[in-house]
């Protein structure tokens, strides 16, 4: 795609400007409709119809109405809030999430930038949103917000570790950090996905359970990074009301919500790329039609949406963990287990 655009426009700069446009469009549309999906799925799970007054029975225009209404809302600056930090925070949060999309490979022909340290970059930039949360929580001059931001920092900083450790297994097997390379390596069908031990001979059977465990750990800890139930202590509405975005009204609150939903797809995308074959078709080249570059978009987005669905499913099923239990889970279970897995994988590689 890079080459095609370069040929068409003949200018490096224009190409660079065009590449992210589909990404922005995707993020905004996804975040909007993830909100609707959340409401519709939760409605289905709770035996009720959900939004059905605008846009026909499916309520497709509900989010449009929400967005337009929120645009009309007054911007409120809380009493004695820090004006600069308060106004900047939502954008920092959203930017941090959006930057993560740069390296997510949607297809063999489309990725924002194919960085050779893509995975590393992803972990680095998604932590930016923590700064935004802390800024927002502090600047709001509200104790609930402050608690929310403090919890957010503690949670995300801790969960970075199991996330990175679980991802490290794939890095060790693949020998690269480039997201596009991960996807390319998993060609040839479902048996070559990293959750199945990656490409390799019969001996890889030994590591399959460990790779499945690593995938699970990655899923759990990214759930925590996206602040989703059962790890949504940051905005736990029965304890600290709405946490960080308690004092934000109108579009600023929307930025926080968008960031949360965009983050959901970003972490699912990383999970899919690392463990579930990225944009590869599960049938490999057996059915060549299903592995064309345009079908790869469908595969990747489909797999990503599946994990987003699982996140929504979990949210409407499980209660929430307490803040110390959250830390226990991270430090006492996830980190030791992922260390063991790394040890096993390393041993396997050496042998």
């Amino acid at each position, binding site marked *: 795609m890079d080459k095609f655009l370069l040929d068409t426009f003949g200018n490096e700069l224009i190409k660079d400007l065009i590449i992210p446009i589909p990404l922005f469009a995707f993020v905004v549309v996804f975040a909007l409709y993830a909100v609707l999906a959340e409401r519709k799925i939760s409605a289905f799970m709770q035996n009720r119809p959900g939004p*059905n007054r605008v846009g026909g029975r499916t309520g497709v225009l509900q989010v449009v109405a929400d967005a337009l209404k929120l645009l009309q809302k007054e911007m409120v600056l809380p009493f004695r809030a820090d004006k600069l930090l308060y106004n900047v925070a939502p954008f920092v949060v959203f930017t941090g999430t959006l930057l993560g999309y740069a390296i997510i490979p949607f297809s063999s022909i489309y990725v924002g930038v194919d960085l050779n340290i893509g995975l590393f970059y992803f972990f680095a930039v998604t932590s930016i949103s923590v700064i935004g949360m802390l800024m927002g929580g502090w600047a709001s001059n509200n104790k609930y917000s402050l608690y929310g931001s403090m919890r957010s920092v503690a949670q995300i900083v801790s969960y970075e570790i199991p996330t990175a450790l679980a991802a490290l297994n794939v890095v060790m097997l693949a020998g690269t950090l480039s997201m596009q390379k991960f996807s390319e390596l998993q060609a040839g069908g479902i048996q070559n996905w990293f959750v199945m031990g990656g490409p390799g001979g019969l001996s890889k059977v030994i590591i399959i359970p460990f790779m499945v465990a690593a995938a699970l750990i990655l899923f759990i800890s990214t759930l925590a990074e996206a602040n989703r139930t059962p790890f949504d202590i940051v905005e736990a509405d029965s304890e600290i009301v*709405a946490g960080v975005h308690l004092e934000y009204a109108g579009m600023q609150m929307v930025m926080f919500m968008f960031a949360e939903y965009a983050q959901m797809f970003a972490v699912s995308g990383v999970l899919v790329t690392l463990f579930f074959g990225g944009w590869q078709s599960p049938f490999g080249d057996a059915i060549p039609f299903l592995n064309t570059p345009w079908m790869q978009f469908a595969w990747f987005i489909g797999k990503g949406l599946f994990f987003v669905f699982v996140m929504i499913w979990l949210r409407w099923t499980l209660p929430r963990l307490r803040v110390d239990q959250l830390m226990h889970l991270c430090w006492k279970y996830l980190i030791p287990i992922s260390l063991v897995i790394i040890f096993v994988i390393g041993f396997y590689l050496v042998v």
Partner: protein
Amino acid sequence: MGILNKLDAHIEPFESGNILITSADKLLNWSRLNSMWQMFFGLACCAIEMMATSASHYDLDRFGIIPRPSPRHIDIILISGTVTLKMATRIKRLWEQMPEPKYCISMGSCANCGGPYWEHGYHVLKGVDRIIPVDVYVPGCPPRPEALLEGLIKLQEKIRTQSLAKKVN
């Protein structure tokens, strides 16, 4: 209001609506009336009926109404129950914390006029409209969910007739 406030400052008041204004009105009103986020907040008996209304059987989510815990995120506040003098100052404060445009539904006789406590209630505020403006009154003690839904539809009708032109006056 985010946009409307800006209009206040920069544009001369419109004398009457023209095509552009009325079309914009329609769109903005449509969005407001279909996305009335409600406060996750109950006072007394009526709060139970309010919960029943938003639960699966009646489902307020159909109308785009979802409960939010923070006053900053909401558009309508349902005063669901008796307002006491001790609570009155808090309700006033909640109302002030809500961003414009905001609407209020007074649910039940107690919030309308004091209800059964009108005569001897030395600690009951006789009607929430003594402290905050009310858009729709829903009678009943407590109102049935159908009555509350009717009240919400009445509020939608009210929003539908609002206009930028009138707003600037």
